[in-house]
């Protein structure tokens, strides 16, 4: 009987290892931006293209930078949650309209509601690269000092809001 113990042990060790690997989402790559100042930019506003907007304008407030696009399918999924968040005035959300066109983006917002304090146009995706965006939607939590505290890749879900985003926003607002 004892001769089976070792293979059995190895088997279970492997199962544990592979099981952990299966539960791990390879799409989730830790952002090197965490704990670092949000990269500066100056991009035209979607509603008033003659005006530029940059993250320094949000100094002193906890805010979300939500990367979205009218062509992005899973942005539809998170959109109602963002609209709800905006209605309850929990946290200001700035939209980074990523590699999109103005007419398409405006149509999208008109149809689905506009949860953003304002959106800025990153038509070429340059700022997206500075923020390490690789899968829209992405959401960054930025604190009062302008430091990136959290990044969510993929759509905002109720679970992500309740477990991660909202508690973090509350904590940052206290501090």
């Amino acid at each position, binding site marked *: 009987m004892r001769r089976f113990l070792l293979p059995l042990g190895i088997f279970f060790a492997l199962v544990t290892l592979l099981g952990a690997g299966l539960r791990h989402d*390879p*799409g989730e*790559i*830790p*952002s*090197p*931006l965490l704990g670092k100042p949000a990269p500066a930019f100056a991009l035209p506003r979607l509603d008033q293209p003659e005006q530029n907007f940059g993250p320094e304008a949000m100094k002193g407030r906890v805010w979300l930078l939500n990367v979205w696009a009218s062509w992005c399918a899973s942005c539809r999924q998170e959109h109602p949650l963002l609209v709800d968040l905006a209605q309850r005035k929990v946290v200001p959300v700035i939209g980074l309209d990523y*590699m999109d066109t103005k007419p398409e983006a405006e149509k999208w917002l008109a149809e689905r509601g506009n949860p953003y304090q304002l959106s800025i146009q990153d038509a*070429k*995706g340059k700022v997206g*690269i*500075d*923020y*390490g965006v*690789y*899968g829209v939607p992405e959401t960054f939590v930025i604190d009062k000092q302008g430091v990136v505290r959290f990044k969510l890749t993929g759509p905002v879900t109720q679970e992500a809001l309740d477990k991660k985003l909202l508690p973090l926003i509350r904590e940052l607002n206290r501090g």
Partner: protein
Amino acid sequence: MAERWRAAIVGALMAGALLLVAGSGARAQSAEATASVVAADPALDQHVQRLAEELRCLVCQNQTIADSHAQLALDLKAQVREQLARGASDAEVKDYMVQRYGDFVLYRPPVKATTWLLWAGPALMLGIGLGALALKLRRQARDGFDDGVPAGENA
């Protein structure tokens, strides 16, 4: 019977040859597509290509940005090109990518505290295997060959 075997082998060879031809066709096509992105200066092109082969496309994670045709990969390749043209070194371009996308963007991640297992893992496994083999051989040399069947059940 032999006839049928021969037919099967010939069939398999033909299928293999067909796959090869189809494969090289696809490769030629992708080379063409890449060529349309890069232009002019062949030395720079080569340099961009070489560096792009070391950078991971984050959208389609098992491809380099040299291979991938995802929009992000094309944009990043354009970035690499722009920076090299400006005179940046390979290390500077890689730093630029790592600052934004993390070590994951490198196909050859640096050796550091969080990645040593990744680098040492294969050697470690080999060591464990060789150790186990040596132990087993030594025990066999001492105790005689053990085929795993209790004595007496051999017949």
